[in-house]
């Protein structure tokens, strides 16, 4: 009695089944999502990242930032993301269509970063990131009711900075004026952000999703059924919703 062929068939079909269902079906369904043109703004959204931010994303990859920081906002009513100010809306698949590599993340040892560019923006945001990368524990801390102060457990990224002797004019990129007294370089030296550090901060400043696209406003946020308008059959959407669903 040799059941080997049957076993092999079963082994093949089970994995083919899940690949078809999870991967292929979804690939066919929505891998070709397109940006949406906004007539008022005269631009299509989402917008691709600028070049320096794209280089920064490579630094984000190589340092493994995504193992502590997710990049997905949960929808209102599921978790507390909206209340925390991590976004104005839940993330939708269209937000990610320009990304050659998607870092949704599965861990929140640190906060979600999908819209960190909205929380820390411009010159002030850049300065905060510089101080924070140099010394996370001192920049972010909290004192609990037990009287103890706890600093952030984000590791320091001082290797994204360089201490160098000042030759001639001080560099316009020197950052030591942002750092506390104990971190000042020796006399005649200055601390500058490396190119990788500049790129990483450019990436973080660029992370920000646009307001909800009209398509998703209809599909994802279906308005609640209104029972006073006629008697919708159980299981069917009322007239008003059914229109926009199509």
């Amino acid at each position: 009695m040799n059941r080997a062929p049957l076993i092999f068939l079963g082994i093949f079909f089970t994995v083919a089944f899940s690949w078809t269902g999870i991967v292929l079906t979804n690939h066919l369904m929505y891998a070709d999502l397109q940006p949406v043109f906004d007539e008022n703004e005269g631009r299509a959204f989402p917008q691709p990242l600028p070049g320096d931010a794209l280089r920064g994303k490579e630094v984000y990859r190589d340092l493994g930032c995504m193992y502590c920081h997710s990049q997905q906002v949960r929808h209102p009513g599921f978790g507390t993301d909206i209340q925390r100010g991590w976004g104005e809306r839940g993330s939708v698949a269209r937000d990610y269509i320009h990304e050659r590599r998607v870092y949704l993340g599965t861990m929140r040892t640190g906060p979600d970063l999908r819209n960190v560019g909205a929380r820390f923006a411009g010159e002030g945001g850049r300065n905060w990131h510089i101080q924070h990368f140099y010394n996370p524990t001192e920049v972010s801390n909290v004192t609990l009711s037990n009287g103890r102060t706890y600093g952030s457990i984000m590791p320091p990224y001082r290797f994204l900075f360089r201490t160098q002797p000042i030759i001639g004019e001080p560099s316009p990129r020197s950052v030591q004026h942002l750092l506390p007294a104990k971190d000042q370089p020796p006399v005649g030296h200055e601390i500058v952000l490396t190119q990788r550090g500049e790129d990483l901060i450019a990436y973080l400043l660029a992370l920000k999703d646009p307001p909800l696209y009209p398509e998703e406003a209809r599909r994802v946020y279906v308005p609640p059924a209104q029972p006073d308008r006629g008697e919708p059959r159980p299981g069917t959407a009322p007239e008003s919703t059914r229109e926009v669903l199509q």
Partner: protein
Amino acid sequence: MSATLTESLRPTATPELAKRVELSAIDASTRGPVLYFLGSSILWLILGTVFALIASIKMHAPEFLGDSEWLTWGRVRTAHLNAVAFGWSVNASFAVAIWLMARLARAEVRHAGMLTLAAVFWNVGLTIGIFGILAGDSTSIEWLEIPPYATPILFVAYALIGAWALITFRFGRSQHIYVSQWYILGALFWFPSIYSVAQVMLLLEPTRGTVQSLVNWWFAHNFIGLWLTPIGVGAIYYFLPKVLGKPIHSYYLSILGFWSLALFYNWAGVHHLIGGPVPVWVQTAGIAASFMMVVPVLVTAINHHLTMVGSFSALKYSPTLRFIVFGAVNYTLTSLVGSLASMRSFSEVVHFTQHTVAHAHHGLYSFFTMVMFGAVYYIVPRVTLKEWPSVKLISLHFWTVAIGNIAMIGALTIGGIEQGINMNVLPTNPDGTAGEPMAFLNVMAQTLKWLEWRTYSGILITVGHVAFAINFAWMLWQPRKPGITQPALFRNAPDMEVAR
């Protein structure tokens, strides 16, 4: 028919001397590749444990090695994962699978050179890969971090092993396919299929948007479900009846367990994306499949338990049995926790927390790694014809890793649930309205004590791994003593026959 069935249930209960001799010849033929794979797996285990300790200490003392870019948390954690998943687990799986395949097919290993070459390729590829991760070439795709320049080397290794397995299976003398072989054959086919599809769809020709995340978790969960789990469960199905010297309780339950696992585990990976920007229907399908995993898990648990019933006293004697039973019990527990954690309401709280880390270690360590330890304690004496030099070291190994496991997984499970409640549940004001969420830094501060626990339990586990490695090296180096008939047991069993 009935005779063949009985035989297939009792792979070893063949008292005739002729079969003993045959088994002995088969064992001897596996010696080179099995020891090569096991030796490298133990080296990776030690290295992976060092990475783990560094990562664990860094989580509550971030200035520890803080200025080393190569050992920054995001890299050293990833190096840990790949060293233990692809270094320790896969090398150990190869060794156990090769030995089991040869024994169960009743085929002496032909072309052992193929296997040794595969072992060289696998470990060279992995060394390059982990060096690349520390140097900053990680892909940052979970479970697929090994840089693309190292993966082709791993594929060569895999192709050699797959071809060898087919040859062995095809030319084996055994007419019957024991359930362990089903699992191993499944695993040997499934792993390269999912690995190559994931490589193509994520690295070579990446699909767009969050479809990538679906591919990622379809692969990552199936690496555990379709590679490590079948190897682990297949090993339990072999060693449990083998050490006890009695047949597995029910042949039909083992078939049901195999096919329900093959069908449902495949789909379960999507539960890592619950609440994320992927279609809700596929999340729901993933939750349903995760819940259906209760079927194969309970079926297997019942089958193993009923095999054990009446023989629990053997746990006092046999090191192999003690590790295997610890693993089997935790297979049931971790799978049930996994089914529960995939429920939307539970996932809303514990997703993104240390609970996930606890669950990963529960499956990969308390179940899989413990089963592999048990298998190593059984296999190595038979292929080297030597006995374990120190029973005390085996005992130290068992108790440190068992207590370390329970402490770590307990701490991170409870800590993860606390972290999840603090992070994801809105407190209720006295007037009944929803309050403000706890500030994020407070959530982190509350979690710190659990992270320190992990380091303490990790130190205990490290002690166990060192004891294991010393015992293994000592065994290989010690000269062979002729005429040993006594296996290394915790104490002498009065009436237990331990088949050689």
